[in-house]
């Protein structure tokens, strides 16, 4: 059982929390962005688990997805590019009773923050780590990321992305001591929610890659359903 749920069991006040208790600023992602559906699933999870908003922290880096904490009414730490995991680890080391979530993009996690990603997987602290993977740099406008499918044109590789993409799942599985590695997609909401729920209840680091579409830059980059 995770320390997060232990904390819920010892809830010492009679508050109950509804979805709106977790809603922060109105999300400013593009219409059709997968981040919206992840946010909805997360809010549903927080409410289902009745996490106290003041005992919940969302830590992010930089990128479209890293605006995530601003759109929740929990504690949030919107830091620097690629480096959400060390901050989250520091919070968890000092305050293990807090429920700590990390939200990163693919550039954040697998490129500039790749070192932190590998090593935090190995440390295996009790964090829920969501990698919102739309296979492109969106905030800086359409540059190839490590997970951009081969051949997809971008502003930095207009003739088509040259290399085959890095596979975050096989990489995570290759890290000794990784304890929860999962993959889901923003466009299968039931699977997304079930995966987030399982990740939350896992004690240790839960790494969840969430496949997403970028409605502006990578339309058609994911297989059509």
């Amino acid at each position: 059982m995770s320390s997060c749920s232990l904390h819920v069991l010892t809830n010492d006040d009679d508050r109950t929390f509804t979805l709106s208790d977790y809603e922060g600023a109105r999300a400013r992602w593009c219409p059709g962005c997968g981040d919206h559906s992840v946010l909805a699933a997360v809010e549903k999870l927080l409410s289902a688990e009745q996490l106290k908003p003041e005992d919940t922290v969302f830590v992010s880096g930089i990128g479209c997805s890293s605006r995530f904490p601003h759109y929740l009414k929990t504690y949030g730490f919107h830091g620097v590019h690629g480096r959400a995991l060390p901050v989250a680890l520091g919070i968890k080391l000092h305050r293990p009773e807090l429920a700590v979530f990390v939200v990163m993009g693919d550039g954040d996690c697998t490129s500039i923050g790749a070192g932190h990603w590998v090593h935090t997987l190995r440390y295996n602290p009790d964090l829920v780590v969501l990698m919102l993977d739309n296979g492109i740099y969106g905030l800086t406008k359409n540059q190839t990321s490590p997970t951009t499918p081969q051949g997809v044109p971008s502003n930095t590789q207009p003739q088509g992305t040259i290399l085959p993409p890095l596979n975050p799942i096989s990489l995570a599985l290759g890290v000794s001591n990784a304890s929860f590695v999962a993959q889901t997609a923003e466009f299968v909401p039931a699977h997304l929610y079930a995966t987030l729920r399982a990740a939350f209840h896992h004690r240790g680091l839960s790494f969840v890659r969430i496949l997403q579409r970028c409605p502006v830059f990578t339309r058609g980059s994911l297989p059509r359903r």
Partner: protein
Amino acid sequence: MLRVHPAMRGIVTVANHVAGPADAASPGRPHTVHRMREHTVEVVSDSGEGAQKCSQIFGAVSAKMGNGVWTVEIIPAEIQPPARAPEGASGNRIRLGAGQVTNWGDDTNLVVAFNEQVLLARHRAGALARDATILLEDKWATDDDADIRDAWLQAMREIADVGYRVVTVPMEERCLTLVDDARKGKNMFALGMLAFIYQRNLDLVFEQIAHTFRKKSDAVYARNVDLVRLGYDWAGAHLDFRIEITPEPNDRPMVVMNGNEAIGMGAIASGMELCAMYPITPATSVSHYLSEVFERFGGVVHQAEDEIAAAGVAIGASYAGKVAFTITSGPGLALKTEFLGLAVMTEVPLVVVNVQRGGPSTGLPTKVEQSDLLAALFAQPGDAPRVVIAPATIEECFHVMTTARRIAEAFRAVVIVLSDANLATGVQPFPRPEVDTRWHAEPADLSAVLAGRKPYGWDESTGLSRRIVPGQRGGMHTVTGLSHDEGSKVAYSAGVHGRGMAMRSRKIAVLSSLLTPPTPYGAEEGDLLIVGWGSTKGAIEEAVDRARAAGLSVASLHLRFLSPMEPGLTAIFQRFRRVATVEINYSDTMGDPYVTEENRRRGQLSWLLRAQTLVDVDCWTRVPGEPLRPGAIVQAMHDLMPPRGDA
């Protein structure tokens, strides 16, 4: 038994050989006891032969016997440099005094050298007094290898004209009577010789050996004790001198440690509970000390995957509770820069200890420099004001951690503590601190946040605000490195951006207003004022004493706060005809090609002082990779003296 090579004739004093084992209680030959106010000894060996362990134990025992002590490591950059090479010289200098010793002094009076090449290194560095006594392992003179015998001869020729008194010692031969590998025994033999010469209490020596080798077996302890006795007895039987430095009476309980241990201990005393770090010389030993004891005090050392992550973990921990700290050296500070900017922007309190070494880049990893001052203040895109403090003594390394922790908390600021390799590895006794519970950090306030209180509820006149941490009901907000308003809402308007800048900057001015002006040492006014910072204090003040005794009108001023600076500097400067800094960093020398008054790159403190005070502050700086010697500073004072009649 004592072999004398023909080449040493005339420069070697051959100790009279006394047959049979000597008894420590009744040494075999009469000794002249030289009574001294102070004496400086070095032990140098190849890396891995244990000269440092020997010196550390000798230094600690001397401190416990009431002597003033200052030790400096002589350390190669590589773990296993080639044997018998001058660049591989490893060991310590220990300056002993009747009273307090504040720096490593000028020249060494007595050297124990495990081979002639490491001795040459010290000779060539100009470290030895011309009349120094040298206790030198003699086995190399008759080595089977002709190259080694030749190298020995050449070395003897090189030092022949100086006037050293060389006493050859059969260290290897004697040690082999007790151990199979003399490389693992000579250091304790040398310790025994020093214990005889300086009349050290052998019980204290054995106690210190037990402490130093506490992780090793009893057999190791017993063997080391035997080796010390062997060296002690040999010295008693063969040397004709002893040295006595009677300590001045002192009834205060003292502790003895190096600066890095003091920083670790100070961090515990301050109530900080998390140290995040990545291994880097010469900072790492803080974490070695803490890793051994921190858990007993509820603390944890996190060895992060890199320097950047170490800063991130400390920031995350601070954000969620008590102030945390990270320790590093120059290259690590460079890597942490982005995160420090985030801590400044989000006003997450943070303590960063930078144990400076020689730079730029990898530079001189094991050697002292004061070259990170401007980086500590300014290495940052955007305006990111922070507090910079520099302890000047090992005792201050202890106390600075509480100061830093409290300022970081009260001002929601990044506090950079600038120590250096000299303080980090130097060992000095100081009065045992009586830990005050007020030094301790209070537990994080987790009470509910009253309606209307904002995460950056800046007080307009001070820029100060109370932080809100996770767990506080009703205080939920997202901190961000983006420009933000009082409520931590992202806002890009000129007004909000400018206001945040002003509030973060104002805190520094408020801190400055709480500081007291520093007091000059030596005189309140005069011809020349020397300004220093950090570990050079002892050497500068000793130089002031000597120069004043020689009739120079000179004083010194030592700054602990570099950002903000202590107030009242301009008024102090105006009482002197000339002001100059003395620093261990690089500056152009007037007269160098192309260098003019206008383009001259000055010492880092001098640069700051000129900008802050508009006083024409000169500088005398050196980058020798070793602490400054007081004698060299005295010479600099003569050179810096304003000419008579120059008003």
